[in-house]
């Protein structure tokens, strides 16, 4: 199985239940977005930074989470400075930093399997509305198992084409891979049905 973004640890945050962390994140995000207050956003960011320290994560982990949004947020800040006021630009940066880091903290301290279990528990009330939670679980676990398999098939098709002296292009690669996946689907479905 492929590795998730979870980082092992033994802090209180690591030990807290996935459902509680998700609920806290939801509350934190709603509060931060509903109330446009510079002091609140600043306190929120400080609190998230303190929680990172508590979980044992240093500046490098913080930056790794912020880097993907840095360019877009920088552009948004320029637009805000031009169209609005500097304090609104500061609020924007504080909010995004706090939200992204809070969400990242849940990801870093919670195993993928625990989050999947929390989602399944969260969905179970919907069973009364006709949602088959067992099928959702099946889809999730199948997809996680298929990810390395699809990568394997793609490299097999690529090697076969190279061996025949053809340079693989995106199109000559994607079509045979998809056709193989579609053919596989019948066999896999039959195997699952035969076992249940």
């Amino acid at each position, binding site marked *: 199985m492929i590795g998730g*973004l979870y980082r092992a640890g033994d802090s209180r945050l690591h030990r807290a239940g996935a459902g509680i962390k998700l609920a806290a994140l939801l509350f934190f995000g709603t509060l931060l977005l509903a109330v446009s207050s510079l002091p609140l956003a600043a306190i929120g960011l400080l609190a998230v930074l303190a929680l990172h320290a508590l979980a044992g994560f240093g500046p490098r982990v913080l930056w790794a989470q912020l880097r993907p949004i840095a360019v877009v947020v920088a552009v948004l800040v320029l637009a805000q400075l031009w169209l609005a006021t500097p304090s609104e630009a500061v609020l924007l940066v504080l909010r995004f930093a706090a939200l992204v880091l809070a*969400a990242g903290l849940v990801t870093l301290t919670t195993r993928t399997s625990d989050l999947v279990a929390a989602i399944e528990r969260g969905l179970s009330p919907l069973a009364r509305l006709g949602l088959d939670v067992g099928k959702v679980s099946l889809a999730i676990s199948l997809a996680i198992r298929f990810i390395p398999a699809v990568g394997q098939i793609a490299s097999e098709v690529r090697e076969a084409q190279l061996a025949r002296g053809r340079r693989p292009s995106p199109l000559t690669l994607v*079509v045979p891979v998809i056709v193989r996946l579609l053919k596989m689907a019948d066999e*896999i479905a039959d195997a699952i049905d035969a076992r249940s």
Partner: protein
Amino acid sequence: MSTRDIVLVALFAALMAALGAFPPLMIPAIAVPITAQSMGPMLAGGILGAKRGALSMLLFVLLVAVGLPLLSGGRGGLGVFAGPTAGFIFGWIAAAAVTGLLVERFWRGLNFVTAFLAASLGGIVVLYGIGIPWISLVGGVPLATAATGSAAFIPGDLIKAGLAAAAIVMVKRAYPMIRPAHGRP
């Protein structure tokens, strides 16, 4: 949903992950990386149809949310959804649904032109129609500003719609999924 449908949904979510592992293509003239991943919603909708295509994208988004680093560049986790461009990720679900609906509509005489229309309406018009207002809303900038910033990605997305359309037509000929080519309706 039959077991086969669930397997197909899971396979296309995994295909989406494989597309994310493709190294991005840099086009010097526009200095914007072209990633293979945004072809995923067009392929899923155009090959599996609206319902299974959209569900496969929903499943993929869920896998990213539970902490798997499956977005191109190895990004993932809940933090992705708190960023300003999250609309372009949630938008994949609607993009696959609309591409799928249009391909189902054009199914009988599907050719490159109609498949390209479906892929670009779903994978570009609908996707940007969600992504741009999202940036505007969470980033506090006017729609026009958000649209200008996103426009640089359109040429790359048109190339991807072309590739996806060609793939959709070829796969339909080899292995039609939306309706069998002969016999039973």
